[in-house]
C-alpha cells in the first residue's frame, strides 16, 4: 500500500518546461501524512448511504486507527451486537454515547449502560472520490 505523488518546487505553467524540474524535492507521501501509527491503521471501504449527514458516502475509504482513544464527536467503528458499524461518539457529563450522527437524539446509546458495545477503532480520515 503505497500512495505517493511527486511534489515539485515550481509553479505549474504552460509552455516552456522549467529547468527547476531538476530539483524535484521528494514525493509527497500520503502514508506518512494520513497514517501516524501504521500497525494499528486499517483502511475500510464504506457501503451504503446512511452516514451522508456526517460526510461519509457510499464507496468512501475510511482510515481507521485502532490505537487512538475517541474524543467528543469522533467518528468511530463500533462493534454492536457482533456487527461493525460506523457511529459518532458523543461525550456528555462524564458519559459516552454513540449516535448515527443525526440531530435525532432518540438513537443515542449510552456506552456505560451497554458495556458489551466495543469501540473497534477511530476514523481519522475519510477519502472521498470527487471525479
Amino acid at each position, binding site marked *: *500500500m503505497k500512495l505517493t505523488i511527486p511534489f515539485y518546487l515550481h509553479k505549474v505553467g504552460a509552455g516552456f518546461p522549467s529547468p527547476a524540474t531538476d530539483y524535484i524535492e521528494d514525493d509527497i507521501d500520503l502514508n506518512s501524512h494520513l497514517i501516524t501509527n*501504521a*500497525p494499528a491503521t486499517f483502511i475500510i*471501504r464504506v457501503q*451504503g448511504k446512511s452516514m451522508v449527514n456526517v460526510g*461519509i458516502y457510499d464507496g468512501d475509504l475510511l482510515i481507521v486507527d485502532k490505537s487512538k482513544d475517541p474524543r467528543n464527536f469522533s467518528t468511530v467503528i463500533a462493534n454492536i451486537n457482533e456487527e*461493525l458499524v460506523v457511529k459518532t461518539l458523543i461525550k456528555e457529563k462524564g458519559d459516552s454515547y454513540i449516535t448515527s450522527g443525526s440531530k435525532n437524539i432518540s438513537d443515542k446509546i449510552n456506552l456505560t449502560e451497554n458495556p458489551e458495545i466495543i469501540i473497534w477503532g477511530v476514523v481519522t480520515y475519510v477519502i472521498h472520490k470527487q471525479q
Partner: protein
Amino acid sequence: MSSINSNKKNKIALIDCNSFYVSCERLFNPKINNKPVVVLSNNDGCVISRSTEAKKLGIKMGEPYFKVKELVKKNKVHIFSSNYALYGDLSRRVMKTLKSFSDKIEIYSIDEAFVDLSHIKEEEVENYGKEIRERILKWTGIPTSVGIASTKTLSKVANNIAKKNKTGVIYLNKNIDTYLKNFYVSDIWGVGKQLSKLYEKNGIMTAYQLKNISNTWVKKSTNVLGARTVMELRGIPCVDFEIEEAKRKSCCVSRSFGKKVESLDKLKESITTHCLNAAEKIRNDEQTTKSITIYIRTSPFDKNRKYYSNSITIDLPVATNNSLELVKLAINGLTKIYKYGYFYQKAGIILSKLREASENDFNLLAPIMEKKSKTLMQAIDLTNAKYGRNAISLAQAGINNDWKMRREHSSKIDTASFDFLPEISV
C-alpha cells in the same frame, strides 16, 4: 549511578497469537466471535487453526476436512479457506507493535515471537507482559498469550500455561518445578516425536524428570540439541536470540492443483508461474541461484489411479535470478520428467544454492548480457509491485489458470491491498 553490569537476570518472553488464523478471520467479522471456527490449509485440505469452541467439539489439529465434515455440519462450525494475504499482513502488524516495546525481538513464526525483557525490573516484568498483550490486542485486534521465563525453552512452557490463564500472561520465576511436573515431555519445545519416544521408553514422562536427568545420560543418549533442552529447563540459556532475519538458502514454490491436471501444457503453465514467483522472491532479496529443481507428482491417496512422482535438478553454470532463463530451464526439465496418462496433483520448483547477487562468478560475457536482463527484470518487478502480482507475466504462464488452488471458503479480505479491502455497511 548503578554499578557496571549488575547481575541482571535473564528474562525472555514468548508472545504467541491465540488461534491466530481464526483471530484474523474474526477481526472484520465479529459475528463469528464466541462461535466454533476452523481454518483449512491450502486447497481446503486439513484443519490448521481452531477456535476454542471448535477445539471443545473435538476437532483435531491437522485433521483432513472430509473427516470432520459431519461434525462441522451438525454444530454449524464456520469454515474458512486460508487467506495468507490477510494473515501475513496482520502478522506484520503484530510484530511491528511488538517492536514498539523493544528492538530485541526474534520473529519465530507467523504468529510467535521472542522478546528479551532482561532490562525490565523483576517486580515489573509481569505487568510489562500484560501491557504488551493489551497493546497488541488494542492496535491489531489479535489476542495473544505471553509467557516469560529465564530461557526460551522455559518461556515456551510459560506460554503454554499462560494460554490457560485468565490474564493470558505468566512470569515463571517461582514454583517452576510444580509446573514442570505437570508438563509432558512431548510438549517441550525442541523435543520431537523421535526424542519423546526415546525419553518415554526410559521412563522420562515429564519436563521435571527431564530437567533432573544426569548430564552423562543425556550426552550419551541424545545429541547436542537434547542436552541444550535439558540445560534450558534448568534455567541456563543455551539458545541464542536470532534477531537478524537470516537470508534463505533455498526458495521453494509449489501448489497442489484444485483440479487434477493431465496435460503437459497445463503443467507448463503452473511451473512457469511458480518459477516467476520464485525468481521474483530471490530478486527481492538480492540473491541468485545456482540450481533449480522441478518436481511433479500424482496423488498418493488416489487408489483408483497409478502413482507417479519424479523430479529433476539442473545445475546452472552461472548463478542467475533472471526469470526468462529460469523458466526456460524449468520447462526443459519438466518435459524430461513428464509422463503422459497421469493425473497430476502437485507441481513445484525449488531454487537452491542461493547466494548474494553481488558475489557472482566472474564471466567475460556476463556483464553485458546481465545489465540488459537486469533492467528488464527490474521493470517487471516494479510493474508487478505497482499493478498487482502477475500484471506482467510470461505468456507461458497462461492466462486462464484453471489449475489454481481451491479456496471455496475464503474471506477474500486483504488489509494490504486496495482491491480487497474490508467493507462496512452503513
